[in-house]
């Protein structure tokens, strides 16, 4: 067992809005051999105004594994992913029914602070979106928010994050160059480093390699494997082969008759791709449609 410093306190009288459980990093699989759940959706439905985009999703994302969400385009994969870190809140008139539980606490509960949720659940977007600052400042952006301003400390954090994102060697001599001057693949790894710098527990990736060339894609996939030891990773991809290569668990989604996204099947990747339980799943993974 690792020693973790429990810095976050539970609700105190002055801070009734403190939300979520103390930090716990890298819990090991429980002794019974089943993996613990990091995120669980309970009867989740997402609405944009009156339109139901996701209908009644129920599944559990295991900790320290890579879970892929696949399905034909438009089936709500991104919507589902974005609901995990409450990015859907940015869409006007969107609301959610049901629950999403992070370590058994509903992130959509009344007094939950979105800012804290988003720190614990980081996101990498389809198109790399570095800030127009230096590479150093891009990664240091998050820690600065939390009051860390001492240059020596920031340097440590930046180096650690860039190493974790497999970018350190390529940029260590040009940390003051603009983040936007990097190649696409490098920019995406910069965004990953930036997300890692705030010490999240979960990393969401929305088609992270779809805008990248094959070499960069491979680098990112390798990166995911090395990251999963310490983080829970959820990735949305329209590339089935990528899902099969990279993920440990797969969720397959489809649109139902009311044009709402639903979860058709969820299970270990090997099983989904070789012995799917659902006919629709089988049709999709064998390429009969998609």
């Amino acid at each position, binding site marked *: *067992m*690792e*020693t*973790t*410093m*429990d*810095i*976050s*306190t539970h609700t105190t009288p*002055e*801070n009734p809005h*403190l939300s979520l459980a*103390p*930090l716990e*990093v*890298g819990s090991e699989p429980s002794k019974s051999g089943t993996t613990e759940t990091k995120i669980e959706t309970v009867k989740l439905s997402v609405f944009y105004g009156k339109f139901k985009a996701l209908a009644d999703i129920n599944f559990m994302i295991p900790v320290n594994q890579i879970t892929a969400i696949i399905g034909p385009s438009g089936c709500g994969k991104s919507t589902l992913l974005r609901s995990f870190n409450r990015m859907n809140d940015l869409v006007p008139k969107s609301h959610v029914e049901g629950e999403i539980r992070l370590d058994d606490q509903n992130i959509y509960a009344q007094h939950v*602070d979105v*800012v*804290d949720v988003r*720190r614990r659940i980081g996101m990498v977007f389809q198109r790399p979106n570095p800030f127009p600052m230096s590479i150093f400042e891009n990664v240091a952006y*998050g*820690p600065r*928010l*939390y*009051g*860390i301003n*001492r240059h020596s*400390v920031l340097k*440590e*954090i930046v180096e*650690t994050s860039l190493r974790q994102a497999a970018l350190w060697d390529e940029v260590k001599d040009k940390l003051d160059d603009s983040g936007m001057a990097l190649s696409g693949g490098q920019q995406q790894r910069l965004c990953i480093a930036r997300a890692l710098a*705030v*010490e999240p527990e979960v990393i969401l990736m929305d088609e992270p390699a779809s805008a990248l060339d094959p070499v960069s894609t491979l680098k990112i996939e390798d990166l995911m494997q090395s990251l999963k*030891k*310490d983080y829970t990773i959820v990735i949305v991809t329209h590339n089935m082969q990528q899902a099969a290569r990279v993920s440990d668990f797969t969720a397959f989604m489809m649109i139902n008759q009311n044009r709402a996204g639903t979860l058709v099947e969820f299970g270990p990747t090997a099983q989904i791709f070789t012995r799917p339980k659902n006919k629709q799943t089988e049709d999709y993974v064998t390429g009969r449609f998609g």
Partner: protein
Amino acid sequence: MTTAIEPNTFPVSQTAEGHKRYIQPRKNYASRQRANAIMLTLTGLLCLLAIVPLFWIIGYVIYRGGQYINLDFFIQLPKPMGVPGGGVLHAIEGTIILSLLSALFSIPVGLLTAFYTAYHPNTVLGVIVRFGTDVLSGMPSIIIGIVGYTLVVKPQGHFSALAGGVALAILMLPTIIRTTEEMIKLVPGTLREGSLALGAPEWRTALKVTLPAAMTGITTGFMLGLARAAGETAPLLFTALGNDRYEIGKIITSGVQNHLSIFQVLGNIFEQPIDSLPLTLYKYTQQPDPALVNQAWAVALVLMALVLLTNIIARVVIMIRSPQSRG
């Protein structure tokens, strides 16, 4: 399990695998949220603060000006100092004449120039003209007045409506050129190409195809420019100068009575000094006569109504149209 933390020691914890932890999420959480709430509210308040002068001015203009508006105000010339009553007919007619003149000078030149800059933006002339209109649009209006003085008043030896019209036209020109150019560029290239492909000459395409397609935008731009010119005072101070005996009806009838030719009558209309609503407003505030100050408020009311209505209509049209043209 909380352990006391020595302030500012980093890293703050370390896992068994050697991963260091630096972030203490709860440390400045409350102050961040507080700062967020304060700043967001502040910006909203600033917005309200900006609206206050608008309503204050409009309110007072309506209140004070409304008291002194009557029919006489619109149809009479000013009375001599000390004599109550009288109106600002001269200023109303002056504003109309000046607007006509400035439109006459600026629209043809502006439209045609816009055709050039829209289709040849990267030639030497195109670049210079576009840069120049930007510079011109930033020129203080009083300097345009000096130009009008030097170009018209000095050679002619007297102040005139013509000089005022020229000055206002120079003022309006950049706006007209820029708006027309943008509107022309918004017309889909396929429209123009289709017309040219049918064999229509360039000028016909421009006048019968491109221009009508861009017409709404051009008109609204022109209305905004005209509203601005109608409200200008500085360029008129030493071009049109002001004239409280000016009345077109009188000019025409006296011309007829004295058997003057059309050109002489026109000369009398355009070659005299002339007043305008804003110019009259300004002059009335410079006099110690409280009756004139009251009239000034009334003039302000008329002027504001004119300018604000034009602006509202034009901007609403623009805002309604722009989602379409961007679609």
